[in-house]
């Protein structure tokens, strides 16, 4: 299972990194990100103080996206504000996220 370190797409961590409980004061969280481009999600490790936009960009790059305004959508279909930190956006450890674009219409 590929687990990508924050800011360094492609760095893999061992599966046991997903099994261990992170201490509450850990600066990191782990998220499983799905893209509409491939069937399987990928695990990433992000810093909690990283912005949603920055974290989504890491995931987007890993999935082959170029440009755009990537962000995350939660299982409850909430599109997260790219400017918030992951912690402020309420993202929790082991959360499942969808990669979406935050661009506008019209």
């Amino acid at each position, binding site marked *: 299972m590929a687990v990508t370190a924050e800011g360094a797409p492609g760095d893999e961590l061992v599966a046991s990194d997903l099994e261990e409980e992170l201490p509450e004061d850990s600066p990191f969280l782990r998220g499983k990100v*799905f*893209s*509409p*481009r*491939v*069937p*399987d999600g990928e695990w990433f490790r992000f810093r909690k103080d990283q912005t949603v936009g920055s974290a989504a960009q890491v995931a987007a790059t890993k999935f082959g*996206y170029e*440009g*755009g*305004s990537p962000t995350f*959508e939660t299982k409850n*279909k909430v*599109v997260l504000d790219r400017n918030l930190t992951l912690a402020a956006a309420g993202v929790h450890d082991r959360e499942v996220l*969808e990669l*979406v*674009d935050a*661009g*506008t*219409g*019209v």
Partner: protein
Amino acid sequence: MSVLPPSAVRAIIQNEWPGAQAWAERNGWTVDLDLDELRLRASTEHPAVRRPVEFVAYLGGYRALPPAWHVVVPGTDRDAGKDDFPQPGGPGPSIFHGNLVLCAPWNRLAYKSVNPNGPHDDWGGPEGWLSVSGEHTRAHTLGDMLAAIDVFLQSSPGMMA
């Protein structure tokens, strides 16, 4: 206008399809791909009013050209009127346009040069859809497009009428 042979279009679609299909399964959409007709039908429930909403994309020429996305009367190929076309909503501009067109660079029908109801003559022709710049929604695969429609649908308060 660039034209890709149907065999090339089918190869592109087949490459993208597993991701799009998996996205649909995760997100409660029904998708049906007709590779002979190069047509994708996608449906779900409008989250605010719990009514079916359905989209048909004609894929001839894809990806030299973007798909021609129609909002249709559910279960038919007829273009939706206001009763079946989602209302725009949310914090920013929506793709659900008052002309009853999905207004996005990835919809061939958004280009005035293709469709008289297309709102845009400022994006160049549809051949340049992959390089339209600005704050507009960006979706370069069929899965990305379905996800984009779903995002705007989530903030739609209902149907146009």
